[in-house]
């Protein structure tokens, strides 16, 4: 009998009502985007890395890969076609530049403290993002230096 009464009390128990939970959005963004930036970065720098590796093997070590030779020929052909000569710079410099932007945004966080009138910038220690960022910067730097070298040599 007492159990029945207690059961009824529990059935009618008023529980705390939690409405307007806001933290779920930041969790959702984190959940769906975790590691995505670094994965995109890897895709973007794969081709330039392979190209530079091929250049290093062929011109510094004298090792030739048929795949690299074919890639080099294809790029040379593209350079000769006025409408398509922008493809090589986009693939070799544009994609690493995009990887730099995406990975920089992924590891930096800006917060404006209105009371203190401060802009706080934090950089997250994400090894994969930072590694891709460094590699992308190196790739872009190599191609820019190469372009400057070529310009000075020919001009």
């Amino acid at each position, binding site marked *: 009998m007492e159990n029945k009464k207690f059961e009824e009390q529990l059935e009618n128990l008023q529980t705390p009502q*939690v409405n307007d939970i806001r933290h779920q959005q930041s969790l*959702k963004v984190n959940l*769906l985007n975790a590691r995505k930036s670094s994965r995109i970065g890897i895709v973007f720098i794969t081709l330039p890395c392979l190209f530079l590796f091929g250049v290093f093997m062929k011109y510094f070590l004298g090792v030739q890969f048929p795949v690299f030779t074919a890639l080099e020929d294809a790029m040379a052909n593209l350079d000769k076609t006025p409408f398509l000569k922008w493809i090589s710079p986009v693939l070799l410099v544009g994609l690493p530049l995009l990887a730099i932007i995406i990975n920089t945004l992924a590891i930096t966080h800006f917060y404006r403290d209105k009371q203190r009138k401060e802009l706080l910038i934090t950089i997250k220690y994400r090894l994969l993002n930072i590694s891709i960022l460094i590699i992308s910067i190196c790739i872009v730097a190599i191609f820019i230096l190469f372009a400057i070298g070529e310009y000075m040599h020919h001009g």
Partner: protein
Amino acid sequence: MNLEEEKHLLQQIKTDPEKFGVLFDACYQPIFKYILRRVADYDISRDIAAECFLKAFLNIQSFTWKGISLSSWLYRIATNEINYYFRQHKQYTSSLEQLKNRGEFDMMDSPEYVNEKQLLEKELEQHNEFKRVQKGLTQLDIKYQEVLSLRYFEKKSILEIAEILNKNEGTVKSLLSRGTGKLRKLIMNAT
């Protein structure tokens, strides 16, 4: 969301993981509330809820449809995580925590969330009767905590509880009856 819609959503998630966001939007609040009512701590509830959804996100590709709703599946993960928390208590370190420590996953603690925490803690404080029951509940065996909280806090039916806990209805009824008796004695002795 009905079962057919959930089945369709599951198929969509399997081809496009981004669609998990739809399930997240539909189920996050009820799951978070369930965890909060069980553990009565905002920070721990947030961690357990995040852990629960992270596990769901990572495992949903291997989820095979057997007529059990996705929300029941999420309740089951949440229940397991809460049980793990109660067993480990102070040593509780979620895989989410490990990811956060490695810097691969982070949740910002801006003043907005501090506000939210204060509001929720105030709401919990205002329910004295609930607090008394919740405190008594934590002293019971986990098997009773599960059924009692799902029945009386979440107002789930016996069938739903059976589905969530993967037990048959008879077992749930028996646990509910014995658990209610034990809880009554605990609360009576405490007053």
